[in-house]
């Protein structure tokens, strides 16, 4: 395993754009991607002429970098890729392009749509019905998204957990979403309503699963040097990685004690000068509540199976949210459970807003360092330490 990290603090996230997220979207993935992309480029203080790299996440229904380049009026590009979904694949690709010299100013754009595989309402729309990529077997088995319900029951069995820690992850996200104008749902969630939530994939109910939404996020990355000349205070990628274990099929995973999240954590610890005692904000992905429990435990905030006690202990009852050591808030934007299912772009965008001081009513004072961990247990665990320059 590598201990090298020559990219440490060399690449900056300098532009952010987002359409916000909606359960009633009426724009095409291209229109949403362009709205987010132009906002991100403008936010960085750049124009189309500056962009020479385009990373267009390959989401269902999305457009490739060649179409994005044409639609944005980009003159020429020397890096143009379409990584698979889940945020960090695209951010890592863009960062590595900048660091290697493949391109100077790289745009990342990720549109998401309510699809026929995760939204019953989407099945009524003939166009959405056509975007069948990622659709689940009927009836579902323990693959794809449904695997998280299967592993949630294993988690409850192995550690004697109740649904309490699951509820706290969901409620925390909803509490924080109230202050995020981009969020799809901003009404509060109580322990009572969580307990009464419609059971979908027992033991996971409606509130344990992220919200299918329409929307798009976009980012602009450049070198740390170039970032000093741009509009916002630069946010640097200190360490970042993805990780898998060899045996990563959903139902063949060795166990909750060893999967891709552990690989990510080990790699970050080997390559980062900063770790959980140094961070000010934490963004554990919670496309399913069980995934966030994994991140708390596997990052070392508490032992395996210890999330129930940990979250109860670090719960701010007045605020109805998680505050680790009374200091570190979690998923301050409302996460995938309440802002919407961005597959982690929301977590990264919010961390950057916080670190550069543009988080508005959600601003956490003096945020210098963030840990962001998109992805689940199987094919897409990812993590990054971001820091204010």
């Amino acid at each position: 395993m590598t201990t090298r990290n020559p990219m440490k603090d060399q690449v900056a996230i300098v532009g952010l754009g987002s359409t916000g997220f909606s359960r009633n979207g009426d724009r095409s993935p291209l229109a949403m991607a362009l709205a987010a992309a132009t906002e991100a480029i403008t936010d960085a203080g750049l124009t189309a002429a500056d962009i020479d790299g385009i990373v267009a996440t390959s989401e269902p229904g999305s457009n490739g970098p060649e179409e994005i380049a044409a639609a944005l009026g980009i003159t020429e590009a020397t890096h143009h890729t379409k990584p698979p979904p889940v945020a960090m694949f695209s951010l890592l690709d863009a960062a590595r392009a900048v660091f290697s010299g493949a391109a100077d100013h790289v745009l990342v754009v990720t549109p998401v749509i309510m699809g026929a595989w995760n939204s019953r309402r989407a099945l009524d729309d003939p166009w959405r019905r056509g975007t069948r990529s990622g659709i689940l077997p009927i009836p579902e088995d323990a693959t794809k998204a449904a695997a998280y319900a299967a592993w949630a029951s294993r988690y409850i069995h192995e550690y004697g957990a109740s649904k309490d820690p699951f509820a706290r992850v969901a409620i925390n996200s909803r509490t924080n979403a109230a202050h995020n104008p981009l969020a799809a749902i901003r009404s509060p969630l109580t322990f009572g309503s969580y307990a009464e939530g419609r059971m979908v994939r027992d033991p996971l109910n409606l509130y344990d699963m992220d919200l299918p939404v329409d929307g798009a996020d976009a980012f602009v990355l450049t070198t740390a040097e170039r970032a000093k000349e741009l509009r916002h205070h630069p946010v640097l990628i200190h360490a970042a990685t993805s990780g898998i274990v060899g045996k990563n099929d959903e139902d063949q995973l060795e166990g909750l004690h060893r999967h891709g999240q552990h690989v990510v954590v080990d790699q970050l610890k080997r390559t980062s000068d900063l770790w959980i005692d140094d961070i000010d904000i934490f963004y554990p992905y919670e496309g399913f509540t069980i995934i966030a429990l994994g991140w708390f435990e596997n990052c070392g905030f508490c032992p395996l199976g210890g999330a129930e006690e940990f979250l109860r202990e670090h719960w701010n009852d007045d605020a109805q949210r998680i505050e680790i050591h009374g200091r570190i808030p979690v998923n301050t934007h409302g996460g995938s459970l309440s802002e919407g299912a961005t597959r982690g772009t929301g977590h990264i965008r919010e961390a950057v807003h916080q670190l550069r001081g543009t988080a508005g009513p959600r601003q956490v004072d003096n945020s210098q360092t963030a840990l962001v961990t998109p992805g689940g247990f199987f094919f897409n665990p990812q993590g990054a330490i971001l820091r204010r320059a």
Partner: protein
Amino acid sequence: MCPSCWSWNIEASEVSGRGTIHLLMVLQQGPPAAGVDYRGGHPVVTVELAEQPALRFTSTVTDDYPADALHIGAPVQLDWINRNGIPTPVFRAVQP
């Protein structure tokens, strides 16, 4: 969105259908397609429309298109034919 100025205040505007052949090929074989006969060659033309440089539209030509007028630079005009019940835009030859 306008790729030049990023304005969302855009609308479709009508074009004359006049233009010149910019790209040309003649398919001598291909997968079976309704209303397409490869035996005499099936022309595919990309026409640069009169309204604006590099504004192009790709289709084929009318069945009675004269062979000596099928060349790059030839002036053409959009026409609509009925191909297997489907209105289809194609180009016909016009006098230079």
